[in-house]
């Protein structure tokens, strides 16, 4: 048997002849060393980049993923005493562009954008023709429109969040609430007066965003945004509406130039309503005129006329010069002091002091006023707040004009006793009348809510006894024999005083009038002071009782009912036809 040995074809790896070659040992060591050196270089480089000099890479990384974002805060709301909205901010978008980039828009794109923004293509072109690097295309764009614009993906057009202020009550509360500018800063009224607390403070945070723009992590310190605080006014929007609508009706029916009305809660000094005419819509402030913007009740002074008489009489009663039933001879309706003559609109004979108020006799008041020294009269005017700003914190409050007593001439003292030669604002007048409502206390006024759990007190000016007598006289003025029977309110005992003053034009009294009525109710326990002023009535009537009296009656009646004040007088059925108040 032949055994054929298979020739050996291969051999085991370890027996490979290549490996049998004898190489010099330094070569392998050399390669090993080089590799080691290369690795070491890499390690050192990465150590250098990541540990020693890491700022550069850190910065590059941050610039790609880290973002500082501002968290916007909204402006506080203004609400009335019952929580009804008077001013509220809602987010809007402002549209801005980098003109260089925006000019690359195609014509159809421009047309689309212009159509969405309610502007012509030419206007749009004019905006982006600017050589600045930033222009606002349009501000305060509604969010829905802004979303549609964002969907167009226009080159160089960007959006920014901002707020717009809305005033749901519109022109009704325009003067008291005021308005803000386009950058959310208060410009007028309460918006300006309470700017500090209404203003929100934007917060900021530093975040890491991923490739898709999602925020994945908060890094560093975050500052939470602080929303502005809400301001709760003393205003009652229902009473405000009553005051506003009746004032407007009175101004229109008397063809007057302007008017103002104020309602004050006598127990707290809160301003429940403050209306002016003409007014404006704060939501759309194009074509505004100065006359519309003026808050007459607070910033305008006028010579008040006879509404000042009760203060003169109160001083006389207080000083014991006269009693309410002292007879004053007012015949023949004229009185000459120096070279000037004072006269009554309707001549009267002998009147009691109470009738002087009821009939509003200038002669009677003058005779009483000349009984005391100028200083005493000045002090009384000063102590009821004339000649000094009412301290509401409202922008544009005026002091009025009360000249120092040292250079009063007798004729001036005489005219001041019935409200000429002295200038006051309607709010000062209304505030001064709180002394009659509060048994002689002059109440501090407040635009914001007052905590009424503790009784609020003002400075005492007159004694309660004098005030009781004065209230009786004021009530007489609205009786049929008085100057203002039209100011009566069915169901309530009211009292007040009319004023019909000549206006000064160019230093002389013109045949133009300011008709006013200031009153309190209910007489048995006064809760409200209402002051109405109508500027230049020219519809025939110009007496305070005929012009401002009916408006007073409507406002007072409505406000008393709104507040649920129980009636203190039997309702006269004969008056039924006269009650067409607001709901």
């Amino acid at each position: 048997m032949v055994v054929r040995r298979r020739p050996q074809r291969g051999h085991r790896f370890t027996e490979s002849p290549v490996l049998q070659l004898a190489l010099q040992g330094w070569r392998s060591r050399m390669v090993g060393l080089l590799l080691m050196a290369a690795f070491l270089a890499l390690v050192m480089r990465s150590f250098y980049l990541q540990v020693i000099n890491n700022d550069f890479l850190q910065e590059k990384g941050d610039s790609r993923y880290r973002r500082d974002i501002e968290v916007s805060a909204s402006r506080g709301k203004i609400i009335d005493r019952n929580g009804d909205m008077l001013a509220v901010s809602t987010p809007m978008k402002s549209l801005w562009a980098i003109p260089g980039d925006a000019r690359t828009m195609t014509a159809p794109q421009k047309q689309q954008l212009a159509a969405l923004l309610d502007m012509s293509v030419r206007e749009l072109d004019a905006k982006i023709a600017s050589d600045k690097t930033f222009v606002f295309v349009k501000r305060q764009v509604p969010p829905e429109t802004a979303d549609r614009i964002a969907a167009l993906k226009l080159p160089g057009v960007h959006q920014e969040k901002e707020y717009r202020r809305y005033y749901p009550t519109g022109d009704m509360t325009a003067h008291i609430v005021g308005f803000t500018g386009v950058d959310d800063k208060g410009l007028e009224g309460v918006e300006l007066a309470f700017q500090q607390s209404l203003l929100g403070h934007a917060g900021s945070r530093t975040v890491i965003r991923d490739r898709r723009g999602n925020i994945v992590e908060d890094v560093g310190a975050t500052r939470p945004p602080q929303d502005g605080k809400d301001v709760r006014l003393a205003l009652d929007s229902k009473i405000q509406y009553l005051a506003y609508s009746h004032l407007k009706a009175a101004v229109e029916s008397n063809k007057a130039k302007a008017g103002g009305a104020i309602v004050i809660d006598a127990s707290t000094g809160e301003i429940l309503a403050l209306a002016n005419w003409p007014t404006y819509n704060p939501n759309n402030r194009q074509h505004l005129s100065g006359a519309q913007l003026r808050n007459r009740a607070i910033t305008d002074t006028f010579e008040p006329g006879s509404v000042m008489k009760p203060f003169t009489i109160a001083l006389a009663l207080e000083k014991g010069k006269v009693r309410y039933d002292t007879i004053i001879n007012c015949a023949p309706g004229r009185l000459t002091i120096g070279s000037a003559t004072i006269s009554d609109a309707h001549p009267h004979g002998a009147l009691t002091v109470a009738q002087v108020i009821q009939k509003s006799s200038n002669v009677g008041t003058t005779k009483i006023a000349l009984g005391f020294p100028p200083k005493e009269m000045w002090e009384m005017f000063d102590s009821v707040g004339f000649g000094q700003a009412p301290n509401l914190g409202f922008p544009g409050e005026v002091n009025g004009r009360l000249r120092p007593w040292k250079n009063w001439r007798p004729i001036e003292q005489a005219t001041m006793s019935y409200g000429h030669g002295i200038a006051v604002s309607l709010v000062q007048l209304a505030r001064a009348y709180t002394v009659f409502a509060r048994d002689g206390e002059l109440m501090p006024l407040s635009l914001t809510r007052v905590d009424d759990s503790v009784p609020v007190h003002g400075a005492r000016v007159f004694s309660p006894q004098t005030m009781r007598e004065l209230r009786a006289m004021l009530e007489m003025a609205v009786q049929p024999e008085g100057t203002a029977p039209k100011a009566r309110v069915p169901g309530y005992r009211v009292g007040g005083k009319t004023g019909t003053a000549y206006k000064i034009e160019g230093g002389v009294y013109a045949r133009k009038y300011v008709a006013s009525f200031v009153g309190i109710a209910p007489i048995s326990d006064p809760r409200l002071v209402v002051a109405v002023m109508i500027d230049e009535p020219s519809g025939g009537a110009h007496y305070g009782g005929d012009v401002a009296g009916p408006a007073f009656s409507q406002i007072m009646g409505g406000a008393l009912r709104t507040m649920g004040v129980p009636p203190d007088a039997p309702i006269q059925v004969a008056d039924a036809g006269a009650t067409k108040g607001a709901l």
Partner: protein
Amino acid sequence: MVRFNMILLLIAVVCALGVVTSQHRARKLFQDLESEQERARQLDVEYGQLQLELSTWATHPRVEQIARDRLHMVTPDAVGRVVVPAAKAAAKGGR
């Protein structure tokens, strides 16, 4: 010794993977939180807008106009009013 080192290495690798996964999950959760917060802000804005709308619909001039013109309501005149004494009203449970 080598085996022990291998086990340590394995543990280190598992831990490293764990860190990566939990970081990923943390970011996912953070994104969810972020989007919920965004939704809360959106709803807040919407609430504000609805409040605004409500007060616009409920302005007194509008209410009065509808009451007068559409519902033909009138303020009752003096004859139509009954004054309830305060004590009696309180006994009945207020106005």
